[in-house]
Each structure stands twice: as structure tokens, then as C-alpha cells.
């Protein structure tokens, strides 16, 4: 049986060869090397703090623009950007960021390339990074690629994106139900005056400005059952008088009030000083006392109109 190995010798050699293979792979592919070492606990896994600049500004950029190809689903060039540790491990070609040196960091070089360059990241077809985004990443790398620091001086301010409110039909229905019958009644009897603020709101708006003199104190005060939910009242050009002053001043949710061209005088404005909710008042050509306006303004109520408005 010359030339033959014993089974144990053979499998020992196989085991050694396998380990050698892994070692070679770890050497040739540093990213793989780091993941192996970290998995074995021989290397500490770099962590970033939740409130760090990395976590709040840099990581969201990677999430939006990069991890569809460099994350859990795909690891192009062996690079993952979905965690701080993965970012530091780099790609199969080596580290992609050099802390302190943005210009020499492969990641920065790629995102800084003009869009026409074939090696530019993200590749054409994907949402590009804005110049501000590139600046954020550059400054972060240049100042040490820290997972701890909270602010990076010189970094542009983040731009909040608009969040469109979600529909909440059940909640809206629930809020509208107590007064729904009243609302319908008013809409039937005086069409075009009362409306919900929006499809997703139980707040009400009153607009009598097209009614002219036909709308007066009686019509206004007929809205009494609904007064708690009224946020906006426009009685411009109506025949409402100071008799409605307590009614208006007592509306708990009234924010915007337009009185120009009505029969209201300064007396109502004085009463409106009691309002806790009012923030905008249009007075048109009402003769006012200067101190009335001043005290209303002190409550941060925007006043429109005044002397000189016909």
C-alpha cells in the first residue's frame, strides 16, 4: 500500500488545506477577511451610535441610493453599505473609505465622478446624489468617518421632505359623527356657507362672503351648535353686527376671521381679545382704536386691512 495515506492523515491535510484556503480568501478579499474575523470574535465589530452624524445623515443616503445593489439582496463587488461595520470592511478590492482622506477614498471618488463617467456611482438609471449629499459624505470621511461624532462642521443642513398626510377615514368619520346631522341641516338650509376643512378633517369653515347683506347675526348664530368645531369664518360684506361679538369671541377653535365690509365695529375687536385660538384677523375698513390693534398684535394675531383699505 505504498503511496497511500492513512485516512486520518488525509483528512488532517484536507482540514489544513481548507483552512489555508480560507486564509488565502481572507487575504485576497479583505472585506471577507474582516467579516470572518469579526464573526469569529477576533476583531471588534465597529458600531455607530444611533444619534451620530453617520446614523442620521450618512446612513440614510446609503439606504436610499446604494443598498439596492450593496446590501442584503445584492453585494456588487462584494461591497455592503447597509451597516457601519460593512462600510468599513469595504469591497472585494479593499477598503472603500480612508478615514481622514476623502479624496483618496474609493467610495467618494466614485460618487464624485460626473454622471457621464461609466464608473460613476450611483450608476445612471438610479436616483443620483445631490451635490449636498456628496458634500455630506465627503466632510464625514474627511473628518474621520466617525461612528460617534454627532455634528460635522460645515455640513449642509438636511432638507426635510414633505410628508403628505395619510387618509384616516375611520377616525374622520368618528370625529364628524356627533355633529354630522347638524352640519347636513345647515348645508341644506344655507347651501354654500358651511364646509369641512378637508376630506380628512372634522373641522368646519364658514364662508358667507358671497351672501352679502342676506347673512346677518341670526344666520351666524344659527351655527351655535357647531361653534366648537369652526376654525375659519369669513363674514366679509355681510350684515353681521356687534351683537355677534360674544358668539365670535367665544368660539374655542376659531383661527381665521374676516370681517371687512361687515357692520362690525371696534367693540367686537375688543371682545376678540378674549379669544385664545385666533391667529389671523382681517378688519377691512373698520374704524379701530390703535390700542385695540396693538393688544391684538401682542397676542401674535396677524392683522390685515386697516386704514386706507376701501
Amino acid at each position, binding site marked *: 500500500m505504498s503511496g497511500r*495515506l492513512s485516512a486520518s492523515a*488525509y483528512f488532517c491535510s484536507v482540514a489544513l488545506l481548507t483552512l489555508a484556503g480560507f486564509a488565502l480568501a481572507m487575504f485576497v478579499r479583505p472585506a471577507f477577511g474582516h467579516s470572518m474575523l469579526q464573526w469569529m470574535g477576533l476583531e471588534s465589530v465597529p458600531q455607530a451610535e444611533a444619534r451620530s452624524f453617520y446614523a442620521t445623515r450618512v446612513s440614510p443616503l446609503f439606504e436610499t441610493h446604494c443598498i439596492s445593489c450593496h446590501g442584503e*439582496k445584492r453585494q*456588487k463587488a462584494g461591497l455592503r453599505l447597509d451597516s457601519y461595520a460593512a462600510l468599513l470592511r469595504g469591497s472585494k478590492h479593499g477598503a472603500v473609505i480612508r478615514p481622514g482622506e476623502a479624496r483618496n477614498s474609493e467610495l467618494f471618488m466614485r460618487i464624485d465622478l460626473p454622471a457621464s463617467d461609466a464608473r460613476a456611482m450611483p*450608476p445612471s*438609471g438610479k436616483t443620483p446624489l445631490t451635490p449636498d449629499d456628496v458634500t455630506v459624505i465627503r466632510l464625514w470621511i474627511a473628518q474621520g468617518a466617525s461612528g460617534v461624532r454627532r455634528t460635522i462642521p460645515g455640513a449642509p443642513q438636511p432638507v426635510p421632505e414633505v410628508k403628505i398626510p395619510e387618509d384616516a377615514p375611520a377616525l374622520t368619520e368618528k370625529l364628524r359623527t356627533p355633529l354630522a346631522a347638524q352640519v347636513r341641516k345647515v348645508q341644506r338650509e344655507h347651501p354654500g356657507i358651511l364646509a369641512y376643512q378637508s376630506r380628512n378633517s372634522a373641522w368646519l369653515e364658514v364662508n358667507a362672503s358671497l351672501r352679502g347683506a342676506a347673512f346677518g347675526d341670526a344666520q351666524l348664530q344659527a351655527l351655535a351648535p357647531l361653534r366648537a368645531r369652526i376654525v375659519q369664518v369669513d363674514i366679509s360684506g355681510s350684515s353681521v353686527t356687534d351683537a355677534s361679538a360674544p358668539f365670535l369671541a367665544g368660539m374655542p377653535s376659531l383661527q381665521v376671521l374676516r370681517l371687512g365690509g361687515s357692520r362690525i365695529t371696534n367693540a367686537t375687536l375688543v371682545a376678540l381679545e378674549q379669544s385664545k385660538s385666533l391667529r389671523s384677523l382681517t378688519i377691512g375698513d373698520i374704524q379701530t382704536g390703535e390700542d385695540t390693534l396693538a393688544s391684538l398684535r401682542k397676542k401674535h394675531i396677524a392683522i390685515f386691512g386697516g386704514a386706507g383699505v376701501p
Partner: protein
Amino acid sequence: MSPDPSPTHVRVWDLPVRLFHWSIVLLIAVSWISADRGYMQVHLVSGLTLLALLLFRIAWGVLGSTTARFRDFLHPPGRIIGYLKGRDGDKWYAGHNPAGGLMVAALILVLLTQVGTGLFANDGVRFHGPLALLVSEDTSTRLTGIHGFVFDLILVLIWCHIVAVGFYLLVKGHNLIGPMVTGKKRPEHVPPDSNLIFVRSYIALLLFAVSAGIAVWVMAQGGYAL
């Protein structure tokens, strides 16, 4: 046909099986390197060729020479475990031994999975498999993930295969590599009651042509043209 009484070797593997085996070796290497380097057109061609070869091998496993047929080397689990425990002693088999048969089955299935998922895979930007557009992007991405995972599995299986063949060669003294090249084993290594039947190679050629046609047809379903 009884084993050749002459002292020279006995034919056990037909040409198609041997060509198949080494072509697979080459194509796996080509697929790996081309994917790693980004030569995706090459990767597409090698992947489709693999598909054709695998389809051919399955057909040949039903219609081919004795040693090529699944019936010859696929054994029930009990038998395989028994073999691995050494119940057969130092027995040679004409074709694949039960463990080898298991490896063949595993490799064919895993490679089929790899080729199958590859048809639907995409690299997120520029390249996608021929059938990737027939499914949702989500599905394609998931299959791409499987394609990536199965690649690691293939590497593991290949390593097992090499280790196993090496074991036979270096520990048991059975050279299995030479026969897979030349097709012939020493007469003393072939059981006398083998009754090996060989099917003509041109039938294999026909079957491969059909398989290739099927591979091209599959590719065409995605609207690709070669």
C-alpha cells in the same frame, strides 16, 4: 458485452459522459470568472450552455449507456449509508459508486437550480437574465439572492467532490480521475457481471442538439436574441 478479456483496460465511461463532466468543470470556471469580472455576455453564454448540458445529461441518464443511467448509480439512502459505513469493503464499481452517485445527483440538482435562478436574475442596473423581465422585480431580486447563495453551495460541493475523489485516490488507492478522462478502468476494477451496454455517441449528439434547442427556446421566451 462481457468485459474485454485482454489485459488492457475495460471501457466503462462513454465519450458523452466524459465530455459532459469536463465541460461542466470548464463552464463552472468560466461562469465564475466572467461574473466576477463583469463579462456578463460571456456569463450568459456559459450559463445557457450549462443549461443545455444539464438537460442533455438528464436525457442521457435515461437513454444513455449503462454507467450513464441514473438507474445504475442512484441508490436508496439506506444503501448509500451502508456503503459509506464501509459494508462493501474495497469493492470497485464499474460506474459511480453509491456515494459518487449521490454527489452526481446533488451537483446536477444544484447546478440546475443555479442555472434556473440565473435565468431570472438581475444585477440591479445594467444586466439581467433572459427571463428576468417576465417576473416582478421583487421576484427577480429574490431569485438573484438565491443565485448568489447557491454559488457558495456549489463551491462547497465541489470541494467535497475533490476531497472525496482525493480520498479514493490517496487513501483507498482507487484512481477515479483517469477513468473519467480515458473512459477505461483496469479489468480487475470492473465487476465481472457488469454487462455494460454502450449507446452510440451520435445519439448523444442528437440529444444534445435537442437540449441546446430547448435552451435557446427558453432564452427566447424572454425576448432575447442571441
